[in-house]
Structures are given as structure tokens and as C-alpha cells.
């Protein structure tokens, strides 16, 4: 019987090896798989390339993973937010690499990675510094930049509900990068608030079909990241 549920957070992230490419869902706090990220900190895999829209806030979650020096390189669209200190400091000290990608191009590169599209053209970034060194091409009199799909070894994603097949539902704008990151990674690891029986998710409403998910772990009451940031708490606590 297919069952993608694992029984502990440490088991969920156990396979993640040094030098892996890891996609991490979330747009700010919404959809950030904070328990999985903390499990990855405990696990200790190093030299990671992380694909995520931001770089985390305060000293928890993704910011803590970076602060713990497990991340060699970030691929993201917006590496600084109101409460991000960790990444800017390491970046200015030359201790972490950054590949800056427009948000829509980042999303499409991840989707392409999952869909077997090795490369595609986009209009975004033409005539800007972010197109420098990239191949460009005129199609129907408009200029486009060639962008490449991104695949990852692992994805850490937060969703709302899963069944044993790994079918997923999300909540509100926490959906953001989760569905496409699941498709683009060899092993998509998903923390959900609730695991239900097969058949309890209406097949018309499934957002991520189970084929894209390898492991699920139930985290009934995920941490309130913004509260930790406000209280200046650090992980490991």
C-alpha cells in the first residue's frame, strides 16, 4: 500500500546530503516549512544551494539555516525583507553566493524544471543588468532572454492537507511556490497540518497530485514564525 507519510521530522529530512540543491517553499512566512527547515538544521547537511523566494526573517527558519552556515548559495528574487539581517551580513562579507532572478522567471524556471522543459524565453529582464551574459533572441520583433529550468534534489514545502498518496491541498497564499517546487525536485518533502484518508480530498480540488510528492509529515500546530521573529528568538533554541 502506497503511503508517503513518515513518522518524524528527522526521518523526513534524513536523506538530504551535503552539496544538495534544496528548494524551500514560502513567500515570507506564508508557506514557509519552518519545522522541516529546523529539522534540516539539526540534520546538518552543508554546502547547500537553496532556491527560495526570500532569505528568511530574524534568526529562525531559512534565516537560521543560513546563519548556521549550511548554505553556499541562494537562488532567489528578493533576498532582503524588513526583518532579514542574516543574509545581508553574510553576503556583504562575501560568505554566501547569490543568484538573483526575477520572481516570475524564478517561478517559471522551477515549473520548467518540473515539466521537462530545459530552457525557454521570457521578456522579463531584457535591457537590465539581470540579462547580462544571457543569450537573447528576437521573436516576432520583440526581444527575449533565454532562461534555463531549475531542478532540485529536494524540496521542503508546507501544505495544509495530504492523503496517503501525497495529494495536497494548500491554504490561501501559502500555496505560492509549493506546487511547482514539488514538481521540480527528486524528493519533495511536505509538512502538512492534517493527513486524511484517501478519498477525503475531492479529486477535482487536488492542487498537487501525489505523483509529485515523496514524503509527508504531519505537523499539526506549526510554529508562528512572525512571533518568533518579533521575540528575537533564535534556532537552535
Amino acid at each position: 500500500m502506497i503511503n508517503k507519510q513518515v513518522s518524524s521530522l528527522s526521518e523526513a529530512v534524513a536523506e538530504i546530503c551535503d552539496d544538495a540543491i534544496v528548494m524551500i517553499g514560502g513567500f515570507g512566512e506564508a508557506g514557509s516549512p519552518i519545522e522541516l527547515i529546523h529539522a534540516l538544521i539539526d540534520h546538518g547537511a552543508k554546502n547547500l544551494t537553496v532556491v527560495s523566494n526570500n532569505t528568511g526573517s530574524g534568526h529562525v527558519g531559512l534565516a537560521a539555516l543560513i546563519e548556521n552556515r549550511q548554505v553556499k548559495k541562494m537562488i532567489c528574487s528578493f533576498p532582503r525583507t524588513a526583518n532579514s539581517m542574516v543574509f545581508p551580513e553574510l553576503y556583504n562579507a562575501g560568505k554566501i553566493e547569490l543568484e538573483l532572478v526575477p520572481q516570475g522567471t524564478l517561478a517559471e524556471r522551477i515549473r520548467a524544471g518540473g515539466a521537462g522543459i530545459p530552457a525557454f524565453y521570457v521578456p522579463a529582464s531584457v535591457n537590465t543588468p539581470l540579462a547580462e551574459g544571457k543569450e537573447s533572441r528576437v521573436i516576432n520583433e520583440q526581444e527575449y532572454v533565454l532562461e534555463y529550468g531549475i531542478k532540485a534534489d529536494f524540496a521542503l514545502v508546507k501544505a495544509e492537507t495530504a492523503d496517503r498518496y501525497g495529494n495536497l491541498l494548500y491554504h490561501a497564499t501559502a500555496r505560492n511556490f509549493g506546487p511547482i517546487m514539488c514538481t521540480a525536485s527528486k524528493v519533495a518533502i511536505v509538512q502538512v497540518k492534517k493527513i486524511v484518508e484517501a478519498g477525503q480530498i475531492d479529486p477535482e480540488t487536488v492542487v498537487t497530485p501525489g505523483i509529485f510528492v515523496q514524503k509527508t509529515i504531519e505537523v499539526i500546530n506549526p510554529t508562528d514564525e512572525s512571533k518568533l521573529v518579533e521575540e528575537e528568538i533564535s534556532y537552535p533554541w
Partner: protein
Amino acid sequence: MVNNDIKTGWDRAEMAQKVALDIPDGSYVNLGIGIPEMVADFVPEGRELIYQTENGLLGMGPIPEEGKRDRELVNAGKKYITSILGAAYFHHADSFTMIRGGHIDICVLGAMQVSKDGDLANWSTGAKNAIPAVGGAMDLVAGVKRIFVITQHITKQGDPKIVDKCSFPLTGKQVVERIYTNLAILDVKEEGLFVRELAPNVNFEYLKKHTGAKLNQYAKSQV
């Protein structure tokens, strides 16, 4: 410098209102972070606009009351929002299908600089020690049908933001259609910048003095 004794120009709310008046009924709109967000407060009665937020919601509603916040319902500025009846959630690739695919009618953005050709710089000063961050700005200007900019006419240092050529790195080339500042509304035309409307107590000479690019006046029949 702006005269502080008598009221010169528009305040932020008035600027936002000017933008709101120019958005047709039924439009799909993406509002950038900052002043652009205020536009939603000034939509004339009888018009219905649908707001898209690129992090995954079509049908963004007003800011929730304190007790009714949902930690996972935020806008592109990561502020708490609500959704209207008839909203839809989607993932990022679908969201930028809307944006890149030309489905959004109007995007209102802030600016660091806008050139006479409609080039926009709003993501980076190019300073060496700054952390570069772009978000969805480049996707928006490349994909949305009409780009409106809302910005102060000059910087806090008194430098013009409307310039002949942007000195900051571009967000996009020839993308801006109209500029709303505290001093005027300007149209970006192939022939250059045209003054669409002057704010209270601002005349053409005054505007010229605070603008870093050539300004044109419409013939009366063109307005």
C-alpha cells in the same frame, strides 16, 4: 524646492486618487508596494476593480481587522490582507502566467527614476554594498498591458526623478505609460513627455525646473 507655505502639489492620497480615477471599470490591477497600495482606497463608486497580488491571489480585499488576520493570507508586500467573494488562489507559475501573459490590465508601481522614454528604474540604486533584490518588478513591467508610475516628483535630496536617461539600473525599457507625481501627471509618448495635468499651484515653468527631462505641452485639442 517645493514651497511649503502655501499648498503646492498633491499629497499622497491625492496622487493615489488621481490614479484611481484613470483606471477603467472592470480592470484587473496589480498594485505595487507603498503608495500604489493606496489607490484601492479611492476607486470611484460604481466601479469594480479586481486586484491581483503576484504571490497568488486574484480578488484581494481590504486589510483585515486585527483579530481576523490569517498568517498565510498576505500580499506581495507581506502585509495581511483578505480575499473577496469570488476570489481565486493559485501558485506562482500561474500567477506569472497572468502577469507575463498580458492578462493584467494595469500595474501601478513606485519609481526611483523614470526616463522621458518610459524607462523605469525602481529596484536598485546600483550601489556596491546594497543587497540586490528585484521581486516581481521586472516581470510586471514586461508583461502587464499598461504601467502607471506613482512617485514623488523629486527625491528627498531634491534631485529630479523624471530624467532624460536613468542613471540607476533599469527595471525595464520603454515600459511606463503615465507618471503620477505630487506635481503633475505626465504621459510618456513616442515624442517625449507630455504634461497631462498640473497640480494646484504648480505651473509649467515650476515643473520644468524640477524635471530632468524635456517636457512638452499638449495642444489644447489633444488633451
